[in-house]
């Protein structure tokens, strides 16, 4: 796991103190691991880690649903646009 994905995991675990494991395929949104109130901070974190800006009015929620999806969208070479 690279440092960026570790930062993503830390963000989620920090906000979910009762969660001891975090699987790559957990639906972060349905499980409320990332809820509506944390979502803005989460977007800022991803922007900072990738150096790319994310348009708040043009989001595809499926990009944020699981750690696997987040890694594929934001942190693999193909993700760089």
């Amino acid at each position, binding site marked *: 796991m690279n440092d960026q994905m570790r930062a993503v995991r830390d963000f989620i675990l920090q906000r979910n*103190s009762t969660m001891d494991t975090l699987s790559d395929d957990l639906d972060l*949104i*349905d499980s*409320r691991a*990332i*809820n*509506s*109130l*944390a*979502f*803005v*901070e989460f*977007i*800022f974190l991803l*922007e*900072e880690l990738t150096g790319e800006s994310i348009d*708040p*009015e043009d*989001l595809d*929620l499926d990009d944020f649903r699981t750690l696997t999806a987040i890694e594929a969208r934001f942190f693999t070479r193909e993700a760089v646009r």
Partner: protein
Amino acid sequence: MAVREIEPIDLALDRLELMAESGYYNPYTMFDWPEAIEPDKPWMSESLTTLAGTPMWDELTREQQLALTRYEAINFFSLNIHGIRELLSEVVMRIHDRTYAGVSEFLHHFIGEENEHMWFFAQFCLRYGGKLYPAQPSLRADSVEHLSAVARELIVFARILIFEEIVDHYNAHMATDMGLPVIAREINRVHHQDESRHVAFGRMIFVNLLEQVAKRDPDEVPLVAEYLESYLTYSIGTLYNPAAYRDAGIPDALALRRRALEHPARLAAHEQILKRTRKFLSKVGVGRELVKR
């Protein structure tokens, strides 16, 4: 809105309704909008900017400091506009429901006044800033699905109340800040006046709904407290808009935002901003001391 689980809400609002009637004004003719604002004046009190009290503020050039007051004023008024959009849509969907029949008279004042507030905030942003900042993204799937219908109802009004109290902290200060341009001071002053009624109403309806939650299931009260605590944190976060830092010509906006949010001087400022609200929440039995962490 299906609210059968919620008992009809009746509150003693005569005094607030009278005040709304006698204090009624025409927002469209009430302000003198200058062509432009004096270039050397801050648009927001410097002590209320998100970098106030930190070395990050001192490191800015005077030009950047003034620019930050301008863009954070635009951010503050934009937050007001988006907050009003949310609360209006919630209240409009409830007025003249059976549950709210007893408070519909006041809600008419509320809806009318909020539309007017939204108008003068937008005027300021568009005339002098040329834009609004967009609303922050939010998830359709919300953070309250684990709560009962009545607790979710409480949270609708709690969000309105908390939003209004935070805004009022800023308005009250800027209403008398003689360093501000007249138009900025006036908007804050007029808003502060109307909001004193909204906050009074907000607290009454909050207490009513909280009692209903506690009566149905006292164990749900700590869950509400937990939600409110994260809502307070969220609300503070919205004041720190990286786009405003960028517009003010300050580099590394996101890293700066992170550093600012956790700076001890800012943590103390957050306590000040939330002081009145936290005191109220604790007094009525749903303060952060209930949150187990």
